[in-house]
């Protein structure tokens, strides 16, 4: 329902229903794109892998009235981003919202063993990529002059560091402050900007971490996964639907006075 609540009710909401979701070929991005399409949005799915076209086609088949398009682009490349956002705005007839979800995990590596290239790569995709896409979309939104909403994907590791996660944590903490600065710059134009910070999600990125953890603990995968789960107050890993629910809310007028914030979707892990 959230996506359907009269979006033009107040200043500060989203008046239209045209969105870009990055990193949308699979995982959380796919879940978000799927939810938005189900809510009646027209969506451009952007991803670095070709598979995004298959994902978009499958989604389009579920909603004959919706415009759903897949665009292959690397968010860490300025030219790719400019081309993808221009194409999305053309195909959708304008833009109202962005979900900046594209990101990579990077490996679980101590700082002293992290190469400059590896550190750069994580920052380039997660932080620079979010900046590039947000900049391109904000430019379109400002030119339209009809407000809008941006949701950036942060992480629980952007709220709290963890050994072995320096690059990832730094990139996601950067996203949180990118969000705040954008919120201040775009607030006067009725464009709201917020961060969703997932905790331990049932995604391939997290299972990779669990495999590393299992190796470190010298235990099997299931035991390592259960170890993680035991530290989550709600007692389960999060799902794409959990993230999609919060993103759909932040894009809706039900969040019309919420901007600059980071919303944890983590089952209660960060309680301190």
């Amino acid at each position: 329902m959230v996506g359907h609540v009269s979006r033009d009710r107040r200043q500060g909401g989203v008046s239209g229903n045209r969105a870009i979701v990055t990193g949308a070929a699979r995982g959380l991005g796919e879940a978000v794109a799927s939810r938005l399409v189900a809510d009646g949005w027209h969506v451009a799915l952007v991803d670095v892998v070709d598979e995004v076209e298959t994902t978009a086609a499958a989604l389009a088949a579920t909603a004959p009235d919706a415009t759903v398009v897949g665009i292959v682009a690397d968010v860490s490349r300025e030219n790719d981003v400019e081309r993808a956002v221009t194409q999305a705005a053309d195909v959708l007839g304008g833009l109202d919202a962005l979900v900046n979800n594209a990101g990579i995990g990077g490996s679980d590596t101590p700082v002293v063993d992290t190469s400059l290239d590896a550190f750069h790569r994580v920052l380039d995709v997660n932080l620079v990529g979010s900046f590039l896409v947000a900049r391109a979309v904000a430019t379109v939104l400002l030119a339209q002059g009809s407000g809008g909403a941006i949701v950036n994907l942060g992480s629980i590791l952007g709220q709290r560091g963890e050994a072995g996660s320096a690059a990832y944590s730094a990139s996601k903490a950067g996203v949180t402050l990118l969000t705040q600065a954008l919120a201040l710059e775009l607030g006067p134009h009725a464009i709201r900007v917020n961060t969703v910070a997932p905790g331990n999600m049932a995604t391939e990125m997290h299972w990779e971490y669990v495999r590393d953890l299992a190796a470190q603990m010298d235990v099997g995968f299931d035991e390592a996964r259960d170890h993680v789960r035991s530290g989550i107050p709600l007692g389960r890993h999060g799902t794409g639907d959990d993230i999609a629910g919060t993103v759909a809310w932040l894009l809706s007028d039900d969040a019309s006075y919420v901007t600059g914030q980071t919303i944890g979707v983590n089952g209660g892990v960060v309680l301190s």
Partner: protein
Amino acid sequence: MSGAFESRRALVSGGAGGIGLATARLLAERGARVAILDRDPAISRDAAATIEGVAVVADVRDAEQVAAAVAQAARDLGGPIEVCVNAAGIYRIASLLELGPEEWDEVLAINLRGSWLVAREAVRGLVAAGVRGGAIVNISSTAGLIADASEPGAHYNASKAGVIALTKQMAAEWAPHGVRANAVCPGVIETSMLRLMDDPVAGQTYLDHQVPLGRLGQPEEVAAVIVFLASDEASYVTGVAVPVDGGVTSI
């Protein structure tokens, strides 16, 4: 879907006015059966009548009154309270040097102890009935996050910061029962509690310079966030405090 409160039983303390009433109304619109708790029987009854809800009466400072009122709400609604919104609160302005101990105690007792007592009775009801699940939403404030020398109220600020700590502890302790607990931190919202616009010129200057969205918030906009947090849309969200402030706390 946050629209789906189908027959869910909700209780809103302080539900007769401002953010509380807007929340009670929105919950009812989205299918919940709602009890309004207020200190004044007539006010509670009149507000409940506007949303076809039930009215219960308690001073939230008083543990026995709260227990009786929450039990009454559960009886009237046909089962334990699944959504508990703690909106009862008072606002006082006083500098630290002039503030008296009685006023300090009153603000803390209503805003902080009251939130604990009401939520405690709701969760006791769920646990006793063997019902797994439930959602608590507490009303904190941006005053629980940042100080304000021009409109001082250390007791109010402390009570609202306390509500955030209380919320996190509720989330941690009640997660095994499937109960989520979250808070909202409203900024300058257009209710009878608002003092900002008493001086319209200074108020407008504040909005222009301190509020990125450049305007007051409406009670309905806070209610929408509360209802989201209480809904299944937020099923993995617990222990958070969400500012609803037009961006004030981003500055």
